[in-house]
């Protein structure tokens, strides 16, 4: 009886702490997502951005560092969009209104997609909000950036410029 008790306790504890996420690693090909746009039902896929340097950002309206990142990312996008750079922000909000309110305060002209169920955030292995993946022209993940602080933009700009300089 004691053994049964101990075994059950052991199994229960193991199950409660088990983590199933298989995070994406550097130098791996970015998984080919297909997600609807924020403001319409049209689907966007990763392959339609292929050949460009992509900054893929997982964000939500309630995430405080995202308020810091958005104006800086918008600037980065404006400065580099004609040089083969693109920025794709995947919104994780449960309610679309919350995302729209956020975007009124922090306007963005880059593509915003929605992953309400967190299916792609799971596949990409997002562990922090926000997490961004910098993908090179060949579709390989070259940098994973967790969280966001004001000074991070300098490093991001550096790697984006480096990847833009690489040939396809």
């Amino acid at each position: 009886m004691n053994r049964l008790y101990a075994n059950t306790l052991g199994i229960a504890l193991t199950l409660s702490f088990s983590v199933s996420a298989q995070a994406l690693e550097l130098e791996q090909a970015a998984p080919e997502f297909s997600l609807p746009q924020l403001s319409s039902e049209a689907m966007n896929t990763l392959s339609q951005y292929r050949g460009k340097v992509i900054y893929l950002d997982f964000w939500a309206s309630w995430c405080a560092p995202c308020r810091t990142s958005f104006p800086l990312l918008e600037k980065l996008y404006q400065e580099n969009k004609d040089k083969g750079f693109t920025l794709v922000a995947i919104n994780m909000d449960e309610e679309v209104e919350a995302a729209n309110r956020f975007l009124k305060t922090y306007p963005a002209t880059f593509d915003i997609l929605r992953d309400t169920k967190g299916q792609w955030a799971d596949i990409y292995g997002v562990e922090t909000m926000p997490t961004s993946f910098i993908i090179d022209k060949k579709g390989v993940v070259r940098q994973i950036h967790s969280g966001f602080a004001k000074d991070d933009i300098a490093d991001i700009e550096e790697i984006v410029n480096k990847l833009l300089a690489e040939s396809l």
Partner: protein
Amino acid sequence: MKSRGIKVSSIIYMLVFLSACTQVKPWERGDLALPQMALEGDAQEAGVRHHTFASKESGTGGYGGAGGGCGCN
């Protein structure tokens, strides 16, 4: 016999409560990020209160987070 009953029922409870054990994904923390979910409603007021408490009682900590004896400040 009595202790056996306790063990059996605690196993049953454990299995029932197991379903409540789940990992909250980072993107599911929207509700937890709401201001009404904060342990302290007003961070500034809480800071002042803790300061007053510390100087009156010459003791501090136990409020969670930094300052709770983590040695990091």
